[in-house]
């Protein structure tokens, strides 16, 4: 069973960065991408994202499912924009160049197509950075750095604890579902939807009970080894901020500032190629 977007240990400089650096980069990057509609800036961001993606040695199988899912939403998003506001592009760029009249009230315009193109490339600036963050960040190290920037360790630890036990719960779920199906409690698509909803109780309750047993053991085991004893704790997986981290943070700030300056130089978020 391979989990979606899970961390995999590899030897690249991106893996060696601190989780916090990657988180800050990720937030600033998304923020910049959300603000700008400047096609030049977006294209540069795509180029950087693509380069980082290649350098992270992320394999297609790690991300393919999620990627397809995002692509599906992107298409829905683009179609919806076109259907509900076909002249959004005209409003933004102030001209109206009809390429093909579709039906009354909906014509394909050059401006709308350009606007949609901008929305599309925005997706491609953000998606790789999400992937890189998820597959190159060791959850334990991330919890450690969260704790170091002031998040209480009980909260920070719960993330890695969840990651630790999710696969166990998944395995339990499969086991219980199979056994109940053999008893005749069909949960596959062959059964009617209403029946399936009603029958989920026959999986949920056993799953809940075994999860409670789990929790009992885990909380005892943690207490017996002193979790929560002190106000502070150290982390085996903690990595100090290194020069590379500082460099990445500075470059991120510089790039983001430059991107915003270029974007807003002409007074709005858009870049108009026809002026």
């Amino acid at each position, binding site marked *: 069973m391979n989990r979606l977007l899970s961390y995999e*240990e590899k030897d690249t400089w991106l893996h060696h960065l601190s989780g916090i650096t990657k988180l800050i980069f990720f937030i600033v990057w998304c923020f910049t991408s959300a603000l700008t509609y400047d096609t030049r800036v977006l294209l540069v961001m795509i180029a950087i994202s693509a380069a980082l993606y290649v350098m992270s040695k992320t394999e297609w199988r790690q991300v393919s499912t999620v990627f397809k899912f995002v692509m599906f939403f992107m298409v829905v998003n683009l179609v919806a924009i076109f259907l509900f506001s076909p002249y959004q592009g005209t409003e933004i760029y102030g001209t109206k160049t009809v390429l093909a009249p579709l039906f009354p009230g909906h014509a394909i315009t050059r401006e709308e197509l350009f606007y949609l193109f901008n929305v599309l490339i925005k997706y491609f600036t953000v998606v790789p950075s999400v992937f890189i963050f998820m597959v190159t960040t060791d*959850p*334990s190290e991330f919890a450690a750095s969260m704790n170091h920037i002031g998040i209480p360790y009980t909260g920070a630890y719960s993330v*890695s*604890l969840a*990651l*630790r036990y999710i*696969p*166990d719960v998944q395995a*339990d779920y499969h*086991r*219980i579902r*199979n*056994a*109940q*199906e*053999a*008893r*005749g*409690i*069909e949960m596959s698509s*062959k059964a009617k939807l209403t029946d399936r909803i009603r*029958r989920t*109780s*026959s*999986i*949920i*309750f*056993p799953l809940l*009970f*075994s999860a*409670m*047993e*789990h929790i*009992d*053991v*885990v909380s*005892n*085991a*943690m*207490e*017996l*080894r*002193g*979790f*929560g*004893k*002190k106000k*502070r*704790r*150290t*982390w*085996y*997986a*903690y990595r100090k901020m290194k020069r590379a981290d500082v460099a990445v943070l500075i470059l991120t700030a510089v790039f983001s500032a430059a991107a915003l300056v270029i974007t807003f130089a002409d007074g709005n978020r858009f870049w108009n190629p026809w002026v």
Partner: protein
Amino acid sequence: MDPIISFKDFSFQYRSQQEPSLSHINLNIYPGEKILITGPSGCGKSTLAHCINALNPCSFSGKTSGSLLVDGVVPEKEGVFGMSKRVGTVLQDTNGQFIGLTVAEDLAFALENDATPQDEMFRKVDRVADIVDMKHFLRHSPSALSGGQKQRVSMGGVLVDDVKILLFDEPLANLDPATGKNTIALIDDICRREDVTVVIIEHRVEDVLYRDVDRIVVVDDGKIVADDHPDRLLCTDVLSRTGVREPLYVTAVKHAGCTIDPADHPQHIESMNLAPYQDKIRAWFATTTLPVRENHAPYALEVENLSFAYDPEEPVLQNISFRIRKGEMVSVVGKNGAGKSTLASLILGFYQPQSGKILLNGEDISPLSVRERGERIGLVMQSPEQMISKPMIAEEVGLGLQVRGVPADEIERRVNDTLRICGLYPMRHWPVSALSFGQKKRVSIASILVLNPEIIILDEPTAGQDFRHYTEIMEFLRKLNRELGLTIIMITHDMHLMLEYTDRAIVLADGQLLTDDTPARVLTNESVSDRAYLKKTSLYDLAVKCGFDRPDEFVDRFIAFEREQRDAGILHGNGAEIGAFNGAEARREKDTAEETAGGIA
């Protein structure tokens, strides 16, 4: 020398209970000793352990009286955290107690919580990884480890704290026999090298005695009933009287009518002096008979050249073929990950084989869906909690019929019939939550039986059960086998189960069928036992030492003898209880259930 653990007239009563779980305990354990505490389920042995590490009364509230000193302090005052510096506890759930995302982090967990500087932490983790021999696995995640390896990590995880006492709560419960043996050896090595006192809570006495222990303490009904050197204790009948299984070779010598002398060192079969007993054992052997095992019934299940893999590079099962006749009781054995559960999943149709055929009564079942197979082959999971989803017993048992659209009056009739067979009829209107573990197990079996399957597959039917409950569950299955002609397949680690209750053992090792033979022959064959991570039975050593040239026949005769005695209701004094669960026991079990429940509240 002063004792490191000292109970003086100590009693403990859980808040939720009427009676004390421990009463007037007097026990001294000295530094460097290795002690085995044993007794039947619910006898109070785990309660005793939890008093040492302060889980009682700090996490599970209750009342104490008398005095308890551990390493010079009172656990109750010190609290769970304080005691964790002195007492390292290894719980029985090897997976559940693995907290870190990797081996290294789990080993470091206690150090992290103690805010140990990182470089010191690295050093200590490396040191304990060395002690428990997990150095090459530091970056592994728990899912990539076997049960035995996880247990090594648990041991390391408490050793990093430089504890003085190591407390093992049923360390053998989830392990295959060979891994269990390695665990006992490792505990012994640590005890010798690291200057710690070791307390092992376990009802599998023979397996713990693979290495020397200094004393065995027997607890029954909240009291200490024996506390003696193993050599002396094994000569008495205190184990069998309290419902704990004696080492098989000791039982065999006693069956032969011998009184064992402590001077002959019965602690290990390898070093026991058998000379005084050989004649009697031979004489006894001559009086026993070999069971007749002839079954010419048609085949119920035939598996032909079955292969399966999730990933073509790593086959899980390769070319498995075997046949099981109607009415047989068969065990499927082998180490963890040998493919036993996968085999069951293929038979039940959860997965599709890459090649090969499965025939039920001579008919290929590949076109049948999971649900259709489920009507003819029932699966009972290891823990009844994993199957039970309805609050009331009758409802739970009838669920499989209800979803199949069987009319209400027929459901009621069939449910009642099944409950009668399972001895649950008087409780049919009870909520499931009021039942003991053994009764819940029967409910989960009843909910499968109600569908009238021809074959029933049980996954570890006796895991974690003490001798009394083991006997109860197994005698019940045997009754179903004999009275209903049900074919029963059991996936198990338990060598006693395969010896005592199955006609045949299908042995898997690394995805291949290693052998398909009588359990006695499997467990007297060293190379088969080794490859399948089983442990050859001590009866084999006894037979060899007494000069029998067919050890497997000796084993078979021994089992047959025990069988006769059990059927006559005279063995271990608990034969009569079987089947009819008596009230007192049900109550006791319920108390045990509440002990656990009380902890969550």
